[in-house]
Structure formats: C-alpha cells, structure tokens
C-alpha cells in the first residue's frame, strides 16, 4: 500500500509517522510542502507539528499551501486522508472536516497518555479495533479542544463519524477524563464519506512496547487490510 507524508517546514512528527508506516510495511514517500504533485497514494498523512509556526491560528496558513490543494483533490476522489494533531487542525482549516479546535480548557499545552474508547469501528481506519475497545495513546497539543455546532454534533453522533472519545481506564466517558475540554469528549472525527480522519492523539507514538505500547498499530493495520 502506498502512503505519502506531507512535510511542512514546521512538521515535527513527520519522521515518527514515516517510521510507523515503514515498520508496518507501507511503501512510504515524503512530500515537501512546496511540491505541486502528489505521488499516487492510497493514504495521505498530515503529521503533527507546527506547520508554518502556527503563530496565526493553528493550521491556517498550511490550509492555503500548494500541496494542500492537491490533498483536497485527492480527498475528493476518495483517497484516505489521516490528519494527526496539527494535521487534524489543518484538515479543519481546509474545511475537509467541520468544527473548530479551540485552545485547551486549561489554557496550557498538554502532553500525556490518555485512554480512548473506540466508539465506531465501521470505517477503514478502525476496523481492526473492536467496538468499545479501550486504547492508550499519547496527546501533545495546545489547541485540541474540539467544538462544533449542535446540528453537526448530532450528525457526527448519529452517523457513526466519531471513532474515538476520551475516557478513563475503565472506559467511562465523562468530564473528569476529558483532557482538553472537547465537546462530548471527542478525540477524532470522520467526514461523511469516512475517508478522512482527523484526530488529536498520536497513534504513531504507540507502535513499540519498549517505548510505550502497541495500541496505535491497530489503526495503521486497519488501513492496510
């Protein structure tokens, strides 16, 4: 399976995602933000980082970059797109995903391991997880507080477009285990066609039990199969 990782000058999880993809047998290519062409890909990953410094709203400038025009074109023709952390912020800014990522409720950067419940696995990113699986991934962000309007929230809930929600070790979902204030504890969302996933947690950081755990592998393996 061919994957492509988009590299902005301020991306800093590009190598980590590439390491994960290669380890899991994707044929991966890195594409520089100034390029105008995307190689033929089954999966495009927009990695975490600070795209162009993000001194303006996170992802706002990246959303207007040349390469994103190509990503939008690929997305519209059905290619799988995965935006992690800053990648999620960029997908929101392009309008490929709806809603907004506000500053964390604590107004502080948060980096820690969090529990997530797999709410919906009926999509190409999560099918290797079982529904209601509890997985442990790392988050590291300043603006991960997901917000959206009532109608869209209902659409997300009703149409199985929320793959992950923050929860506790036992799987209960409430405000005490919501790290950043996201509405309904949402950690990631899909578009209507379910070919675009944006998520704040970093699956690429959880692929090796020596370093952390292997809970992120399920996501990459779902895409492979």
């Amino acid at each position: 399976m061919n994957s492509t990782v988009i590299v902005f000058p301020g991306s800093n999880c590009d190598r980590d995602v590439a390491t994960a993809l290669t380890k899991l047998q994707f044929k991966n290519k890195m594409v520089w933000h100034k390029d105008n062409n995307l190689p033929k890909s089954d999966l495009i990953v927009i990695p975490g980082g600070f795209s162009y410094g993000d001194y303006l709203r996170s992802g706002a400038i990246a959303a207007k970059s040349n390469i994103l025009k190509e990503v939008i074109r690929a997305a519209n023709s059905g290619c799988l797109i995965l935006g992690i952390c800053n990648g999620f912020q960029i997908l929101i800014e392009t309008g490929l995903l709806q809603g907004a990522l506000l500053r964390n409720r604590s107004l502080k950067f948060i980096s820690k391991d969090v529990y997530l419940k797999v709410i919906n696995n009926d999509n190409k990113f999560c099918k290797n997880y079982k529904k209601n699986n509890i997985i442990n991934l790392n988050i590291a962000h300043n603006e991960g507080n997901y917000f959206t309007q009532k109608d869209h929230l209902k659409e997300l809930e009703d149409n199985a477009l929320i793959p992950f929600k923050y929860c506790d070790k036992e799987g209960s979902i409430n405000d005490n285990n919501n790290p950043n204030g996201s509405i309904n504890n949402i950690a990631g969302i899909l578009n209507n066609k379910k070919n675009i996933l944006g998520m704040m947690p970093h699956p690429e950081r959880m692929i090796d039990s020596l370093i952390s755990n292997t809970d992120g592998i399920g996501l990459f393996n779902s895409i492979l199969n």
Partner: protein
Amino acid sequence: MKITKDIIESHGLKLDEYSKIKQLLDREPNYLELGIFSAMWNEHCSYKSSKVHLKKLPIKNKNVIQGPGENAGVIDIGDDDAIIFKIESHNHPSFIEPYQGAATGVGGILRDIFTMGARPIALLNSIHFGDPNNKKTKNLLNGVVSGIGGYGNCIGIPTVAGETKFHKTYNENILVNAMAVGLANKKKIFYSKAKGINKAVVYVGSKTGRDGIHGASMASAEFDENSEDKKPTVQVGDPFTEKLLMEACLELMKKESIISIQDMGAAGLTSSSVEMAHKGNLGIELNLDKIPCREENMSPYEMMLSESQERMLIILEDGKENEAREIFKKWDLDFVVIGKTTDTKNLSLKFQKKIVATIPIDALSSKAPLYDRKWSKKKLSKKKTNIKELKKIKFDEAFFKILSSPNHSNKKWVTEQYDQMVMGDTIERSGANAAVIKIHNKDKAIAVTVDSSANYCKSHPLSGGKQIVSESWRNLISVGAKPIAITNCLNFGNPENPEVMGEFAENILGVKEACEFLDYPVVSGNVSFYNGTNNNNIFPTPVIGGVGLIKNLKKIQNHRFKKIDSKILIIGKTFGHLDQSVLINEMYNVNDGIPPEVNLLNEKNNGEIVLKLINEGFVNSVHDISTGGIILALAEMSLSSQIGVKILKPKKLSNIFEYFFGEDQSRYVVEVDKNNYFKIEKLLKDNNIYFENIGVTQKDSFELDKDLKTSVKELYEINNKWYNNFNGLIS
C-alpha cells in the same frame, strides 16, 4: 563620542579594565569598540573569575572526543555514534521576562548542539524558584514552564527530564538551566575553528533586531530595584525559525562545504566572529552594510551587540556558496556573505565604506582579563541536630507533609506541559531515576539526568560538590546505564565577594574529586555568577547534567515496583544522617550542621554492584536514595506502580526518623524476586557490599514498621494536591 567614566561603567567595565583596553589598542577605543570589549570581557563570555578554578576539573576519559572549550562536549558511544551535550543558564533574562527568557534559554542550548553537527534528541532542565508564597513565584513559575514547553514542543525535541525546586534564596533571582543532548556521526563533527584566509563568512538565519543588546553584560551583574527596566535586554525567541535553521544546517552538514560554524549566542555577532578567528589564529573582516536587519537604521553598535536569536555564522570552502545558498533558500532563510577571513589577526568592521572598528582578536580573547579572586574557606557549622531535642512531630504527619510539600509533590503539572514523546524514542520519561532515550533505529540507548543540591552545597561546598556528581552517577546506574560524562552549570552569587568565591572554589574541588574517582569527567558547561539582588547572594547551586550509555535495550531498569511479595533490599549503609535533610530543613526549619559525607569508594562499589545486578537480570526495580531518604524512595516506587510495601526497620538504629528520613549517600532500594534472593545475597557478600533486607512489596497498603499504615491511593492524593491548590485549578 568622548568615552566618560559613566559610559565605561554603564558597559559593566571597571576603570582598570578600561586602562587595559587602551593599553592593548595603544589608543582610546571608540564607542563601538568599547561596546565590543564590554561584550567580550564580561563575566558571562570571558569566564574571567572562574577560569583558574575550572582548569582543575578532569575533562578526559576513553569516551571523550571533545571536552570544554567548544560549543558543547562530545562523547563516543560506539558504532560511529557520538553524543553531543551541554547545559547552560538563562537565569537573569528569565527573571525579567519568564516566558521569553526560558524559551530562548532552550533555543540557545539547542543551537550549541546542532552547530556541532548533532540532531538534538532530548532536552532537560533544572529550574529553581523562590518561596511559593512569594508574590512573584506563581507568575515566574508559570511563565518559565510554558516558555520551556513552548520552545521545545514547537521545534519538536522531547523534554524528557528535569527538576523544579523552591527555596526563598531564589526569591529575587530564579534559576533557569537548560540542557540539550544530540546525536551525531563521530566522523562528521563540526567545530568553530576558522581555517584559511579569504574564505567567505556567511550569515544565516533570522534577521538582526534590537533585542538582547547587552544581554550578556546584563547577565554579568547583580539585580537591583530597577531590574524591570532591563526588559529590552531580553531576547525574543522564534522556535519555528530555529527549526528551519536546524534543518538547513543539518542538511548543509551532509555536504563537504563547511570549514567552521558557530552560533550567535551571548554577545551575538561579536562573540561568534571573534571566537572563530581566535581559534583559527586569523583575522576577520565584516561588512556591516550586508547584515540582514529587522529594523531600520540600525547602527554598527546595535548590530554587533544584538542578541537576536536563531542566527549562525558559517565559514565556507571556496566555491560552495551556491550549493549552500540553495539549501537556505529551500528553508526560506537569509543567507548573506558578510565578510571574509584575513591574515591581519584583527576584527575589522566596515560600515558605509568606512572602517568603523579595528581590534586585535587576541585583545578580545586570550588577553581578556583573568582574575584569581580572593576567596575564603567556608566555616563549617559544628552544631549537630539531635532529633530528640526537637519538638515532637508524629512520624506519619512529617511524612505526609513532606510528600505534599512544593519540593516533593508530584511534578506532572510541569512535565505534562512538555512534549516528552515526539521523535518516538523516549523510553523513560520525567519522574524516572533518569530519562532513557533510544538511539533511533539502533539497539542501544542513552540515559540522561540533571541534579542539584543547593542546601548541601551551601552548608558544605566541598562535600556538596562531591554529592551532586555522585547523585548524578547514581541516577544513571539506577536505569542500567554506564555513566560516561557530565556537563555542569555553576550558578553562584557575586564572585567579588570572597565568601561566594570560596563556595565556588571549594565546590569545584568537590566536583573534581568525585569526577576523577568515578571516571566521570566534565566535557562542557557554563558558569553563571552574580545571581543575587542587592548583595543577597543565592545559595551556591551547581547543576550537574549526566549522560550514560545502555548497550543492551533489554537491560533497561526503572523504579516502578513490578510484583507483589518481592523482597526489598537497601544497598549501602544507613547511618541516619539528618543534618541538612529535608526533614530537618523543611519540617523543623533548622539549618544547622553539615550534609552527609560522600564516601566515593562506597559510591563506586555500590553503584557497580547495582549495575551488575541489573545486567544479571536479578532485580525487578531499582531506585536511588536521595533527599527524603528511604521513605521517599519507597513512596516514589509505590506511587509509580500502585504497589504497596511492608517494611520492618532493622534493629540497629533506634530512631525511626533517622532510619527512614536519613540522607546517607551511596544507597539504593532494589526489588528482587524471592527465588533469586540467595544468589543475590551471595553476590553482595562476596563483594563485601553492605545491604539490608527490610521487607516485601504488597498489594495497596503502604506500611512502615508499627509507625505508618496507609494506602497507596491515599499517598497519591497527598502527593498530587499541592499544585492545584497553588494555582487555583479545579481539575
């Protein structure tokens, strides 16, 4: 402009130093030249008060590739891999403007690392604040922590370890020390020494602005009530540009085009150009009309003294300009040839077609003033604290109070603001004995740690010097690493005060003794004097950054209890030393006496045996014993694993406070399987290692003798409540 006494003093120069300048130049300097001298001759850049003492430190062992004197130290970790690391202070700027001061401290130390060809792989820090009740503390704490995080998180280097401490001695002068560790190919290490004449001198990175002018001079004086006015001397950081600069430099370093490279740190363009010329025994000529400026009408004085961040100076091989320019263009950075190397041995500056300064390089470097300042030996306190004479406090009350105190409460409110996992190789994060970072795509790892013990160093500078090196060594041993070398950041008061200079001199001797005995040399470092306000000097606070190697990833150890019903051993002898301990200092507010003695022979023997136990696979977990004694070590092991303990105090020490809170050195707690116990006992006895078998791990309950019984869950709550109350957070 006529140089007056006021102008000289406002440049932080003494009148006799000014006479020396005139003598070296054989004339009066002009205003620009005076500024350049002040930038190079201040304490921060010249090490004029510390050099005579620093020379005593051991700087070599079989792993050392480069010791002090370059941007950072370099050690060999096998297979062509080298680790490059250094620690540096940013105390003064951080007190004036905590966010930017701390952020640019991180930025500066990162540049020192990648200038030499290393990709940074870890950041650490040691931060000291005043009393939490001091009205400035909260703002400084929050600003510094978010500044450190803001820079490291953005550039994408994990912040993996550190220490956050509070003491009233830092009320008016906080400490912010940042350490960076990088990985390089040992055949591709870059130095600052210029070679050859008529070589292009290239300016790359950010544009020069008016920020940070006289930053290094500001950091070479005490504070007073007008310190707030110094805000314009603080630099402003831009981690995104640093990321671009780092990637561009590392990309250029893959080619064969760099002769030498130096970052513009303290004293900016001045120190970087002088440093390169001095090392190469050459001259350097700069055309200041070419300097990329951020603001209009900048004068040569401002350009030469600006400490704008994220800039580098490179000397290129002939004919490599275009190749190099293309790389910096790719990263959208300035790339301008601003001058050349010469054989004049002068720093020569041109501006608007005129020569505006000519100074012999050696006048700025090797002929800079050197002082062997007066120092007095520390008068040691002869008092001894007798615990029985102090007011009675209940054992459990004392323990809970310490566990919930600012210095010993859980620090995740700090570490959770740092991305610890980016780069994907962090095996042990903050809170461990030492952080452990895997070498990318290799089967080995390094361990890194920072340590300080200001109380010990204040009451006994010599012994304190030995202790901090030993504690650093012990931390690395506890994760299964072989300690290799250290970097040190020496934070002291005013060196013109003989007592402060005495603390410095004796402390260096202590550090030296331990480094020599443990074969743990100093390969880089930084001295920060003038930490104090209005003649109040801070406690001497040397900070040690240690690096060790783990050759086999399967042999990494940590301090989390693994099983219920394991045996718990204490390696090393407990005498019950309480003077200068957390218990006596913090609970009773008594500061008499001297800290525990460090027996380096025991330190070495005990450490080596623990490393052997780890490598034989005999231990389930290990924790070194430091401040707070056995009880705090056990609590940390329980808190991190949610496994309890049942401990029986050995009979020989009658007092439970002395046994559990004593801070005797060279000790470790190890958890071992019952099945292995006899093998371990034999190994320890055969090697004449003193140890005690003090109890077992158990489910949930934390029990010490008859004197304490509580649950791990309760300990967790006690350990976590301080910061939320302090900062008024709900969650």
